[in-house]
């Protein structure tokens, strides 16, 4: 028994909202491998992504699923000895995988910028935060120091740093975690990139500060039409910011859909399990649903469906055959045999 609309093309199968002309980022079959004792292992294994202009796409998964490595791959910043071994990364119509490094340097920051979980480690401790933003501006534009400094103050103001003309002369250690993340966002905004890659941007912050940063990102995205690829493990943050969501497990995408699709009607047993395991969702007094076991290591990835070892719906084909993508709604698809069979 096959569900309707099961036959999606194998390439780009994850991109179901592919309004191609409108894409700021298109990723096809991205594969990033690391050498291990047992041979090359694909930490990112054939990922397809699609981010429209001004859209927020959330890439969700637990530690080790490959979401951060996907983000680094997009900017061709994979740490050695890892490397991108297959796929295309098309940003504003140009393939970054084949781009010469000098061109790539111009693209980074100008067309795509990135912010990280630990703003403290991304800032140089011996330079004032203002000097670092000035440097970022002057890397992309031939402007005087004075102009760049004035722009920095304006950027600080825009990201909500109080007393911006004084704070430009502060060193990173004089700022709180939330303020440092605002500085990173100001730096990322300097060249008005079309895409911001935000890798767990609020995970290291307290909840009241996190709310401030989420509000800021939402405002910037709306005011500038900036697309955001949000990497997160937290469905609450995804709900606050994302338009669409892609769920990642053991190097692969397993489900994709709009924010509402996934939060209200997730279909893949992994997405369903993750949502049920969140303590914020259960009624008081009831027991949390567990996903048994742990994510398989690179060496232990099972054949067939990678979630089969932990899946409550596992049946005969799961342990042998890679599950197909099944479209379950106009905007939603899942990669699961049970969904394809209509039993999930």
């Amino acid at each position: 028994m096959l569900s309707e609309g099961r036959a999606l093309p194998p390439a780009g199968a994850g991109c179901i909202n592919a309004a191609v002309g409108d894409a700021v980022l298109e990723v096809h079959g991205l594969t990033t491998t690391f050498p291990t004792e047992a041979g090359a292992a694909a930490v990112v294994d054939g990922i397809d992504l699609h981010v429209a202009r001004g859209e927020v796409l959330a890439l969700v998964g637990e530690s080790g699923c490959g979401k951060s490595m996907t983000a680094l791959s997009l900017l061709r910043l994979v740490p050695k000895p890892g490397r991108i071994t297959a796929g295309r990364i098309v940003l504003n119509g140009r393939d970054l995988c084949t781009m010469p490094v000098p061109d790539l340097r111009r693209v980074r920051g100008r067309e795509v910028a990135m912010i990280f979980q630990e703003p403290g480690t991304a800032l140089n401790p011996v330079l004032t935060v203002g000097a670092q933003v000035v440097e970022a501006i002057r890397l992309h534009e031939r402007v005087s120091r004075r102009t760049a400094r004035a722009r920095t103050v304006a950027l600080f103001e825009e990201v909500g740093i109080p007393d911006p003309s004084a704070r430009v002369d502060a060193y990173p250690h004089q700022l709180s975690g939330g303020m440092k993340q605002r500085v990173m966002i100001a730096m990322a905004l300097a060249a008005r990139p079309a895409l911001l890659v935000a890798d767990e941007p609020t995970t290291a912050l307290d909840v009241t500060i996190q709310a401030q940063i989420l509000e800021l990102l939402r405002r910037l995205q709306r005011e500038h039409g900036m697309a955001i690829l949000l990497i997160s493990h937290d469905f609450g943050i995804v709900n606050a910011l994302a338009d669409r969501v892609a769920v990642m497990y053991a190097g692969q995408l397993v489900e994709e859909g709009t924010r509402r699709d996934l939060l209200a009607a997730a279909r893949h047993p992994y997405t369903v399990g993750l949502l049920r395991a969140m303590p914020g969702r259960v009624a008081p007094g009831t027991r949390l649903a567990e996903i048994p076991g742990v994510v398989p290591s690179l060496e232990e990835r099972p054949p067939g469906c990678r979630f089969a070892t932990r899946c409550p719906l596992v049946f005969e084909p799961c342990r042998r055959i890679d599950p197909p993508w099944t479209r379950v709604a106009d905007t939603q698809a899942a990669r699961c045999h049970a969904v394809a069979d209509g039993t999930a």
Partner: protein
Amino acid sequence: MSEPGEALRVEGLRTWFPIRRGVLRRVVGHVRAVDGIDLSVPTGGTLALVGESGCGKTTVGRSVLRLVEPQAGRVWWDGVDLLALPPREVRPYRRQLQIVFQDPLASLDPRLRIRDAVAEGMQAFRIGANEAERTERVAALLRRVGLAPEQMNRYPHEFSGGQRQRICIARALAVEPRLIVCDEAVSALDVSIQAQILNLLRDLQAEFGLSYLFITHDLSVVRYLADRVAVMYLGQIVEERATEALFGDPRHPYTQGLLAAVPSMDPDRPEVAAHVRGDVPSPAAPPPGCRFHTRCPEVFARCRHEAPAPYAVPTGASRCFLSDPKVA
């Protein structure tokens, strides 16, 4: 003294850390990590102590166990004030009060096999007649926390984060404690693993009648596990309530701001509200008056110079003038 139904009672606890400067290391000030707090952990129940980084919640846990020395206050346990005991008389109580930390890898000796890590406390408190008996008990404990007893001869690095936290829980249980301080015990774990550990903690509580002082920054975990919640801000408890009352009808503006800032997973309510502005002031120089007044959306003149007392509210207390029936 503790009252019936109370496992642990903390009164007026104050733990300040000196700030030293210069070659003479003179004390130039104090970090007022814990600045006069009262707490009560119900017998066989859970008190959650919630707050953001730097509020002093971890220092409370350590002070209660005397891993740091408080300057003032009482910690009542079984009719004894633990803080009044000379250091060597604290030792027997270490068996009854255990702690589980956030980072299980940092709290396990990398060179110690799991069997020895779990058996260490038993040996110290002479639990089990001999090594064979202790090994048998380790096997039973590992099985109870969801690990295979055959794994007891492995080292900590051979386990995942969730498994290591299970090992730390087994180690705490090994000495038959009556209360466990869980200091961000599930905060470093992935959601699917966190659910496993939370369920385990709940099962163990029911099975052994354990009391928990559950220290965390994560409000959703609190709602799942706690009977009562104390919200901490800059060294003080600002609100203390029964869990459902706190979540359903928070009274202190800080609690209200915290709850509003937690991203919901309801697709119809995506927005988070950043009611609480700015950053936490330094605990070395807390603001005068109400400590929260610099960030409070409802601040008025009185808050800036006068410190509010805890006012009674349904099922607990709130340290805010707005909770004073005479004001509201």
